[in-house]
């Protein structure tokens, strides 16, 4: 029987992190950002059936990049967690913070356990608060680190390049159309600055919102087809689109160039490659 090679724990964690990052880097990005009436999720996704963005609970949405079977499994586990908790206690007792913690425990546990391969996923759990200031976006990486993101979050292969575009274009209180167009511009700029922005049409996008103005308790809604096309084209949404929630453009920001970003944006959009070290979390990658 051969004795196993000694591998230093640092090296082992680094190898596992590299492995997970490589898997995540192959996928197209997802952008999540605040807009005037809530939170919008924009993913580059050419599949109509395999979703990257989903509903977890009344006010909680989910987005993911990486390996489909792994994040789909996480999404379903999140729905089970939320529904069981909401049924046992009350609907208001289901929070994104609780869910993000549960995900972090799971991802961190798998990452640092020697047995299983780490999940090749990054996920975002976003929650609509009672007011715009209470909205939350949590970003979780493959090793269980949680980041509480301000303004916007990007994840996926070329998150750094996309985050640059968002940082330059983001302003508080963007209307839905402006927010979606900014996100699409960010997703198309994944080749880095100086290269032409890829055009992404309705067929290449998956868009959903957590809409505070929606009358029903379940605030999650997909935006697709003609409605999405109208948003991309910058037209004011007409009331006759079958969804009279008044969530269309509020005609506040101009269509192409949103107001200049605030100066306090430095904390937003942490790049993918340096997972934030959170106290009490699972160890981050060694790099």
């Amino acid at each position, binding site marked *: 029987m051969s004795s196993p090679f000694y591998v230093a724990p640092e090296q082992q964690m680094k190898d596992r992190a590299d492995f997970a990052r490589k898997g995540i880097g192959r996928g197209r990005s997802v952008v999540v950002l605040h807009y005037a009436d809530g939170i919008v999720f924009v993913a580059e996704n050419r599949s109509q059936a395999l*979703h990257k963005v*989903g*509903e*977890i609970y009344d006010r909680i949405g989910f987005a993911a990049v990486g390996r489909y079977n792994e994040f789909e*499994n*996480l999404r*379903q*586990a*999140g*729905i*089970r*967690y939320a*529904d*069981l*908790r*909401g*049924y*046992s206690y009350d609907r208001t007792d289901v929070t994104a913070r*609780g869910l993000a*913690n*549960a*995900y*972090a*425990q*799971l991802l*961190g*546990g798998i990452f640092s356990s020697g047995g299983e391969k780490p999940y090749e996923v990054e996920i975002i759990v976003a929650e609509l608060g009672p007011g715009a200031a209470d909205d939350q976006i949590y970003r979780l990486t493959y090793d269980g680190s949680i980041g509480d993101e301000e303004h916007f979050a990007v994840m996926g292969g070329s998150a750094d390049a996309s985050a640059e575009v968002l940082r330059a274009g983001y302003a508080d209180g963007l209307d839905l159309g402006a927010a979606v167009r900014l996100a699409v511009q960010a997703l198309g700029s994944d080749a880095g600055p100086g290269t032409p922005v890829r055009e992404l049409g309705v067929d290449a996008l998956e868009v959903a919102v957590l809409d505070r103005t929606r009358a*029903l308790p*379940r605030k999650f809604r997909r935006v697709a087809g003609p409605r999405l096309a109208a948003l991309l084209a910058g037209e004011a949404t007409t009331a006759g689109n079958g969804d009279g929630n008044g969530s269309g453009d509020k005609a506040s920001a101009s269509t192409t160039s949103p107001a200049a970003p605030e100066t306090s944006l430095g904390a937003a959009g942490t790049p993918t490659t340096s997972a934030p070290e959170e106290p009490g979390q699972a160890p981050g990658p060694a790099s």
Partner: protein
Amino acid sequence: MSPSSPDVTRGGLPSAFLRAGTSSFVELATAVAPDVLPSSRLAGSTSTTNLGDLTPHGTTIVAATFPGGVVVAGDRRATMGNMIAQRDIEKVFPADEFSVVGIAGAAGLAVEMVGLFQVELEHYEKIEGAPLSLVGKANRLATMIRGNLPLAMQGLAVVPLFAGWDEAARMGRIFSYDATGGRYEEHSFFSVGSGSIFARGALKKLYRPDLSAADTTMAVLQALYDAADDDSATGGPDLARRIFPVVMVAGPDGVERVGDDQVGTMVDTLVGGRRTRPDGPEAPVV
């Protein structure tokens, strides 16, 4: 993460949540936290005593279809024996965006079962990414009623009336149940609960398939009034406290509850008419 979950082996998410499995919330809860389900309660009890006196009983629910959907209404009374346990209980609920469930029978259990049914439909829709068909929803409810059979035999029967807009068939449909989980599709109109005999009799004379939503609502309110007239367990409109029947309309745009002020206006018209003719509007003999 349920308080009673025995399996919290993997941090915050029990491994049962991660195993690819069912789209049914009831099946999940049965596997992970069975004691949160109403059906598991008293399941070990072999007592043959009638437990029906333990909980208030809800009474009359009426439903009627019209060309643009279906109207469901319920009175507001819950009784315990000869006592009125609650005068403003709500027994008609939206089950999801396009369907409505009304309940008669053991009130505590019934309200809990409605909550479970709502989660069941929402859970399926979120996991699968598409809602169940209306008949699929009706069948899920039948399964849940069947699970309640041991309690029904001890006097805690729950008798729901399920109705909704069938997107595929483009019409409103009504389903009734018996305590064993038997499911029956009803046509045009139906009623359950202690006052249902009187309500159905009234609707027989008032109902026409071509009525508008407002006229169907009025017919249903008349039927509830007639039920309250002859059944002591069914509450009539409480004009002093302004407590009126709960009325929901399911149509192609979803479920909408008719506002209390609107129902109040209709009830005032109805009661005004009854002052001159206490038995309600007359139907032609031939």
